[in-house]
């Protein structure tokens, strides 16, 4: 970005870099969550900037539920190879053995086992004392309340009513044995900030964000992409090709596509500005009940 002209994006970028460096300097075993989405792409870009010319001094962790879009996995491996960061991929093998999937076990049980439990397994196995995530405060109501350095007890639970005060940019990074920290360097970014930053910095993102003709089925108003043969089709249900894209990426059976012609970044940003629905609407797991994200976070979800 043009130096010496301090726009709000530059201020946000500097703030995030400062947070990332604080993690590297203060924790013994940090790890960065890598979800392959656009926020993760921004986070990765910021981490490369924060430590340049050094390499990113911590590994990236991807929790693979086995139901991610194929294009996401391809993008992940391409990116890891290009930037040469240390990538750890973890899948809950217990869940795989039991054949846990979103169709037979429901989205909330599936998410708990393949995402929340899997994450806890991976964090315990790596004995990570800090896990960096790409969550933003504008995404959801309970996220809006979370600290940048968010304390977790020994069972990875968040206590929203008893958060550490967080003053200025003086972060308390101290932990007792077994405790850990979740750190959110892009807390103060909005969705528009993320997109304009991707545009300004030419950051590569998964092609699924761009509109293309893709095979989808429509279920209770949500467009689900038929990414592989595991998606059970109802009798008579026939995938049809539609011009769609994704505003947010997760597990393909749980992520709704939107009809769109926006095939490049400027059109995406324009479409987003004109749209009247919020980003997480396409995520089926948030709408289970009021306060469901807070509950999940208390249980250890990111």
């Amino acid at each position: 970005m043009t130096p010496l002209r301090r726009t709000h994006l530059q201020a946000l970028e500097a703030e995030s870099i400062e947070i990332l460096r604080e993690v590297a300097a203060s924790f013994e075993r940090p790890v960065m969550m890598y979800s392959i989405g656009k926020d993760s792409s921004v986070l990765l870009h910021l981490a490369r900037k924060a430590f340049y010319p050094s390499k990113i001094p911590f590994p990236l962790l991807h929790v693979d539920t086995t139901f991610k879009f194929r294009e996401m996995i391809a993008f992940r491996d391409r990116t890891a190879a290009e930037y040469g960061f240390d990538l750890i991929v973890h899948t809950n093998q217990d869940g795989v053995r039991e054949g846990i999937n979103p169709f037979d076990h429901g989205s909330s049980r599936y998410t708990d086992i393949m995402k929340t439990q899997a994450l806890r397994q991976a964090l315990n196995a790596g004995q990570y004392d800090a896990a960096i995530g790409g969550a933003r405060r504008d995404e959801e109501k309970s996220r809006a309340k979370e600290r940048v350095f968010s304390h977790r007890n020994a069972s990875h639970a968040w206590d929203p009513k008893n958060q550490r005060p967080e003053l200025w940019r003086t972060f308390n990074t101290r932990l007792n044995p077994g405790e850990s920290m979740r750190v959110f360097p892009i807390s103060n970014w909005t969705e528009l900030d993320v997109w304009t930053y991707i545009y300004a910095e030419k950051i590569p993102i998964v092609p699924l964000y761009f509109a293309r003709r893709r095979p989808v089925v429509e279920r209770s108003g949500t467009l689900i992409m038929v990414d592989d043969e595991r998606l059970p089709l109802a009798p008579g249900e026939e995938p049809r090709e539609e011009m769609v894209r994704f505003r947010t990426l997760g597990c393909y059976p749980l992520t709704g596509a939107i009809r769109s012609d926006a095939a490049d970044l400027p059109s995406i940003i324009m479409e987003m500005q004109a749209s009247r629905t919020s980003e997480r609407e396409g995520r089926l797991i948030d709408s289970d009940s009021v306060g469901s994200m807070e509950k999940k976070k208390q249980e250890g979800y990111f």
Partner: protein
Amino acid sequence: MSLAMPSPDTDLALWLEQQTDKSLLRFMTCGSVDDGKSTLIGRLLYDSQLILDDQLASLKKESHNRTVGDEGIDFSLLVDGLSAEREQGITIDVAYRFFSTDKRKFIVADTPGHEQYTRNMATGASNAELALVLVDARKGVLTQTRRHSFILSLVGVKHVVLVVNKIDLVDYDQAVFDRIEAEFRAFAEPLGFKTLAAVPVSALRGDNILAPSARTEWFQGSALVPYLETIAVAEDRTGSPFRFPVQWVNRPNLDFRGFSGTLASGAIGVGDEVLIAASRKPARISRIVTMDGDLDRAIAGQAVTLVLDREVDISRGDVLSRPGETPEYSNQFQARLIWMNDEPAFQGRSYLLKLGTQLVPATITDLKFRTNVNTLEQTAATKIDLNEVATVTIATDRPIAFDPYAANALTGGFILIDRLTNATLGAGTIEFGLRRAQNLTYQSFDVNRQVRARLKGQAPQIVWFTGLSGSGKSTVANLLEKRLTAEGRHCYILDGDNVRHGLNRDLGFTEAARVENIRRVAEVARLMADAGLIVLVSFISPFEKERRLAREIAGDIAFTEVYVDTPLEVAESRDPKGLYAKARRGEITNFTGIDSPFETPQNPEITLNGATQSPEILADKLYGFLKF
């Protein structure tokens, strides 16, 4: 106020440039419970068209049975994010919200009104450039309004807008507004805000939010949003002296050694001379490195990596400045402290202090006075309770670099951390450094501890007995002293009761007095050990923090914590001084084990079982353990 949407005809590059060029205002809302803070923010989001269709639908569903405006929505539901908040209808923690107009981007911190959540309010205030102080027109200025305003000034918020809300409920009466404004201005005058504006609004109905309301024609000022869009709040941090706290040493290979950090203030260019605050060693900037390429110059707020022209010893926590405008460098300063923990702060207790990237053990050495946050009255105090504000002197274990908070918030604000639980206990703002620490150096004499120890033929040390009253501490200490004296060694027993008759007779048994009691005894023990003695301290010392303090005061003198572990039933049955009986009858209070806790030592060097073994055996065991 609506954000101009890009249309297919818009020049997108230009539009994006406008988006990235906007300035950012971080503000907060505060005020008493039910003054309508959350409603006001909800209104701002709604009017800036940031409430999206799916959110609106779920809001209308949730707004059932609540106070709603013309739009049929309870706006406060937008910001109260935690389940407990929605259930109780109050705000517990800071919520951050984002909105944008054509002129500016805004980050709003909605902070709680309840006194018990004052620490969360301070969290929101510490990063705010401006604050909206809400007042209910029907209630006027309340205690909480005053408390919040005081905390704003403490944390250094310079710009305030008094928002007199619910003006519709007093029939848009100018007299009501004028009276509240006058009262608030009189209170806020000594708080030193740079700007103070007042505006009458109805957050529920939208009066004077986006534009002047026809229902308050008597009001000559600006409506709220236009005011927020135009007020100049930017501090010229680039014009201040250069401060660069080193955050992380960047060392990818043997050929590169850089110092990563963010410029807290000022500007620096390649070739400029800098000075390291601690060592006062000079160096020149040879490169300013970023992934986007090297820079010639960096300014306040930029995160960069500096490379120097020579090898100097620099690590995290060091602060770089220019020669001639260096920060203060001292181990003592006066500060205002806001306490954020249920357990009070005491003089003499040791904490961890974090200021910028510096982390050091620190002690409150003098609790000067407490400021009543409601009346600004100053009173003497022996402790600082939750949500209280006090002016204190703090001593750090080693000197740190800082500036007065008024000159530089990023190098003048600090937090205190509990050494056991690691909780954030309080936040402080430095008023000024105390230079006497720099001038007062320790006299070093030719005859030192080693010489005195050699003369006595022993290893001076402190043996610290802890345990309940009646556990057998003094009996064991006595037996040990007899044996050592018989061997020709020089010992002294400091006993709790005896010391309280003389040195500490001015101290009672409150927690604050106990901390001071321990501190004095530990200092005396250190002096005696320095004189070459083996010092046996027999003190109940029920709190882990004080035992840790005693150990720290001992410094490099050998320190052995002996836990005489005798269960309460056994100690009480012995009751050699009849104290347990008195405590049970309520004749003495704050008695350890009865109505005051004994914290089991976490890491004593040795534990003696006082219930099952005789004092003689225990003394032998201890004798065998110690090295003389």
